[in-house]
């Protein structure tokens, strides 16, 4: 399971993003996981729970946006039907246009209002 190493990569990035406040002030971490990002969402949640306290994010909740996969022909723009062969009748190159990424989107912190 590579989800644990991905979660540690998440906290590495978050550590830098939440300076100068520190991880203990983080209340929410939002990620977007594509259907073809190669990540098992339940395992990712479990890994987040395993690493959260150890990394100092005691009060952080994880919010996951699931992004569906979409392919499109780079020439005519046609999208293959779900489950059908991906090749486009026009012969153009088909590429994944959405749903291949694993993104740390946003972090919410609760900070003193001074």
């Amino acid at each position: 399971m590579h989800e644990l190493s991905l979660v540690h990569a998440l906290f590495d990035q978050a550590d830098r993003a939440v300076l100068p406040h520190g991880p203990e002030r983080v209340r929410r971490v939002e990620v977007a996981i594509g259907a073809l990002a190669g990540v098992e969402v339940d395992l990712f949640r479990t890994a987040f729970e395993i690493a959260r306290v150890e990394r100092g994010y005691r009060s952080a909740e994880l919010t996951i946006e699931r992004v569906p996969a979409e392919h499109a022909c780079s020439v005519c723009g046609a999208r293959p039907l779900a489950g059908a062969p991906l090749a486009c009748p026009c012969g153009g190159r088909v590429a994944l246009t959405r749903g291949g990424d694993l993104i740390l989107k946003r972090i919410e912190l609760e900070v003193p209002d001074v």
Partner: protein
Amino acid sequence: MCDVCGCGDTRVVSVDVHTSLLAHNDHEAAHLRRHFAEIGVVAVNVMGSPGSGKTALLEAAARALAGTRRIAALSGDLATRLDADRLAAAGIAAEAITTGSACHLDADMIHRALHGDFGARVAEADLLFIENVGNLVCPAIYDLGQAQNVVVLSVTEGVDKPLKYPVMFQKADLVVLTKIDLLPHLPGVTTRELRDNVARVMPAPRVIEVSAVTGVGVEDLVAALPPVAARG
């Protein structure tokens, strides 16, 4: 909170990050890709299930390429250096990466392996096979600086594997169907159906059929490998 002026109150601050969780690996892989270009080596990332025949395929390729290409190989496994020893016996400059518990190779592991003596042997080669940890899931998302992603799928694994493990096939440049000498013993398994399923998950399907035992298709494999890179 004080009830005079509200000091001690808190507010919520939102920090937009929008970075890939693989950013560090992708950065290291870009370094590797530049390094490979500088030393004139093309790297091929060979992925597939445990027992799909990755090592046997590379042994067969080494026999076919003897005298024409100088080959190095990095072989990843959780434990032992058995595969690296097999590849070395086949005439390849081979080194093992023992991952312990990690289910995949990442760019940092390749980088570390290229330091020291083995890096010098890779620089003398023109083709580097990176035999990934046997796993049809995790290795797919880690860029290793390769010029080509090869997915090895044995016919004994059944026809439905591309549909069940689409991410790896989505990332593949070439799919090699191995053990085709066993097809007569596998009722219900046809390479036609395997190819059809690959085409549903691989945007630009490119499939070759090989038996490392009989040698059928090994020439097709050799022809499908990236050409020798211009150095520099």
